[in-house]
């Protein structure tokens, strides 16, 4: 029992509190690309991916988004509908806005993917079109 309770020990800290890395889309941001998600077999997904330009910063916004649970889901900006050439934007959490590194040419990445890195399993794809 002691071993079990110790084994499940997980206490948040200063850097892992909820909402720590939450980004927002500012009202003046310009919508540049958007697309609806569709899922891979066995997965349920809904919502869309929209890319806004906020000053000099591109941001991916997952709108009305929900997806089946997965152990290690990441948000990718991808050159194809499979995770071969991509930019990892971080863990899929309750946060819905993900900053794109400024060095990335967004127009070269016409897909947003939700991918389980731990088991290398693709969950959902959003093909983007220019607005």
């Amino acid at each position, binding site marked *: 029992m002691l*071993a079990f309770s*110790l*084994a499940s*020990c*997980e*206490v*948040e*800290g*200063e*850097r*892992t*509190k*909820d909402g*720590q*890395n939450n980004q927002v889309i500012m009202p003046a941001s310009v919508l540049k690309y958007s697309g609806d998600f569709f899922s891979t077999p066995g997965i349920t997904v809904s919502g869309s991916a929209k890319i806004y330009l906020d000053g000099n910063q591109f941001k991916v916004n997952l709108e009305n988004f929900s997806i089946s649970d997965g152990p*290690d889901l*990441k948000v990718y900006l991808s050159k194809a509908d499979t*995770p*071969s*050439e*991509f*930019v*990892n*934007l*971080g*863990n899929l*959490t*309750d946060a819905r806005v993900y900053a794109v*590194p400024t060095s990335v040419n967004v127009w070269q990445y016409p897909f947003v993917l939700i991918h389980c*890195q*731990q088991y290398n399993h693709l969950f959902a794809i959003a093909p983007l079109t220019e607005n």
Partner: protein
Amino acid sequence: MKKILLMLTLFGVCHLQAQGCSDAGICSVGNAFGIAERQSKNNIELGSTIGTGEANVQYFSPYLTYARNWNAQLELAIKVTFNLAAGDFGKRATFGDAYLVGNYHWKSDKAPKWSTLIAMKFPFTSANLKINGYSLPLDYQASLGTFDLIAAVNLNYKNWDFNAGLQLPVFNINRNSYFSEFSGTDDFASTNLFERKPDALFRIAYTHKTARKFAFKPNVLFIYHLGEDSYETIFGQRENIVGSDGLTINGNLIGLYALSATSSIELSVATPFVVRDTRPDGLTRSFTAGIVYKVSF
């Protein structure tokens, strides 16, 4: 006695930022497995270390070892580790690794005496424990997520022990997903899908037994990390972690008190003197202190 107190003081006040001997496995070679009581068939060892690592992460790392002497030469052991790490990212605790160890003592009536050790390390996790969905650096992971082969040889000559060993990751299930870019701090290196290189070890230990029930075992441990570790960048490209190879030198002092003919208690302190430039594997300790209870039956 004054010399011993001086050494304890020196070990106690050193606070270098470096790779300690928390346990990549190889640090146990010739130590935890090699000095088990060999007159009894069964030996149990319950121990724990506390330590301080990079960015002031605090560690509590208990372990349990069961060893059985099958005959005068062969000893087999199993060891299970547990790790609690606490720091700015929070607290995370879980079981770390299991070790299966075979230690063969070659027949010899006189010095020097040789023994060889073969061990396997099995990880309990893939080094991707999170808190609140946030990925954690390897410093907070209980295991590196590698199946390792450990081979070592020990030469005992009078009061001296010389160990040489190799720890080779043979199968990697590390799925760590920590990026310093997303964490808001550069205290820890990015270790997404970390791949680790082998270690070579050399240790010199001197055992001084007093007339009473005490023994002291100062030792120096050299660990050479045989290549740069690597990780996958946010662009999916594998990249070497510059400066993660090279030499670490640890000083370690063990004091042992025999409680009875079949049980003993052991205290140890350790700190590194020479360090690698970059230490992404989370084995970094500026200082560790340990206590071990051993009983044989």
